[in-house]
């Protein structure tokens, strides 16, 4: 699925990440933690090829990301659901339209019943015709999650999905992600919230990775 071998990322002559090696196997659940600015978002951007490694091998579904064309990357992103930290909605479209966007851009038909069910699952059925700026922080995150999974991707990447949420809403979002994992989806959540990780580890078998000194480490024992 997603495989990194000795990957480094540089920008403007400085190295942001180095010696990154990881293989996301199907059905696995990972947390990625580390202090703010450690490179969690950069790491996730690598995983959906918004950034390319400056060295090492970055494999996406068996293909070297550095040799993929723009349209290849677009097709690959239809297989990876991403919950962005800032959600990234099109503010002139309704919540339903935003959630259905991955289907729209890939030319796939939109099943109204399934869309309504998905919105109900994330608790946004009543807001389906609202515009994104009218949503609260928690509602935006749940809408972003719905958009990330509407194409039924094999991998879900979430970048600080609970960053702006209260504890109760964070747990609700976490439970949605754990449900998806139980359905066989591979989940990688970048977060600096250790309480959230502890909460999840009680219910799901998760590996915890940490970025420290620009390197990726297994951090399960520290939690």
């Amino acid at each position: 699925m997603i495989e990194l071998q000795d990957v480094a990322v540089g920008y403007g002559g400085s190295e942001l990440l180095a010696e990154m090696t990881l293989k996301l196997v199907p059905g696995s659940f990972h947390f990625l933690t580390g202090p703010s600015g450690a490179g969690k978002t950069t790491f996730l951007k690598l995983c959906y090829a918004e950034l390319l490694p400056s060295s090492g091998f970055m494999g996406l579904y068996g293909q070297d990301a550095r040799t993929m064309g723009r349209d290849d990357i677009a097709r690959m992103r239809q297989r990876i659901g991403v919950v962005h930290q800032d959600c990234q909605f099109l503010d002139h479209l309704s919540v339903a339209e935003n959630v259905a966007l991955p289907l729209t851009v890939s030319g796939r038909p939109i099943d109204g019943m399934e869309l309504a069910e998905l919105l109900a699952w994330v608790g946004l059925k009543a807001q389906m015709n609202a515009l994104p700026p009218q949503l609260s922080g928690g509602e935006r995150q749940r809408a972003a999650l719905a958009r990330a999974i509407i194409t039924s991707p094999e991998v879900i990447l979430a970048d600080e999905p609970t960053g702006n949420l209260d504890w109760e809403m964070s747990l609700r979002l976490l439970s949605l992600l754990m449900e998806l994992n139980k359905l066989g989806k591979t989940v990688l959540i970048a977060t600096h919230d250790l309480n959230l990780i502890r909460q999840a580890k009680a219910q799901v078998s998760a590996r915890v990775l940490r970025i420290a000194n620009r390197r990726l480490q297994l951090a399960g024992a520290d939690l």
Partner: protein
Amino acid sequence: MRFNPFGSELSTADRVVPPTGFTANLTVLTSAAMAFLAVFALALSLASGRLADRWSEALARSATIRISAPPDQMETQLRAVLEALETTPGVASYRAMDEGEMRKLLDPWFGPDLPVDTLPLPKLVELTETGQGIDAEGLRLRLAAEAPGAVLDDHTRWRKPLIAAASRLRLLGWLSLVLIGGAMAGMITLAAQAALAANGQVIRTLRLVGAQDAFIAGAFVRRFTKRAGAGAALGTALGMAAVAALPAADAAGGFLTGLGFTGWGWLWPLALPVLAALVAFGATRAAALRMLRGIR
């Protein structure tokens, strides 16, 4: 159940780009203005083409023989010329111009009271050619032998520059059309680039949810093509109305009064909105793909 959350009035792909008033108006106005100008350039081109054809055809079929001889030889040489024309292949008709016609020709320069009979004027013989035409060089040689004072003028000397001028005017009209098209492409490219830059975040979001180049470019291309086509249709309609309001061609076929369309020529301007749409399609697609190259 199939569902279109974007409503039925617009396709889903069209709605992903938010409406932008400034660039929309700019594109429509630019296309309308350019199409308006293009109608006149087209009218100029077609009118000068007609003029060149008319001059070419009218002058190619007539010639004049001028006889300059001493008064006592004038009648002899005139008879010799008429006899030569009688047996010359390619001559449909001929006649010697009388004093009244000569007076008419000279009226504009000397006034109506000129005593033509007292002036040593040459005799003029006007001839009309058949479709096959005359052998001008052969006739000249024959006239030189039989009527030494006769000179054949087949109008070539002044016909050629006139036709060349009309042809260049026609070329100028077509060149104007090309320049107008180029200017329109430039303006639409700028408007498209402004729209693309203003929607940079939209494009990044579309990229992140898996949109390919063709989808994103297509959303912008369709929008600008429709706007340019609509604007050009408006400009073409106004331009055609303005051309129709020009004075009609007079009997003499004056150039300025003949600046318009005739018959099937009125169909030519209808191609302008289609051309404008094609120009917008190409310009927007090129601008969009150029910008998308920089966004992963």
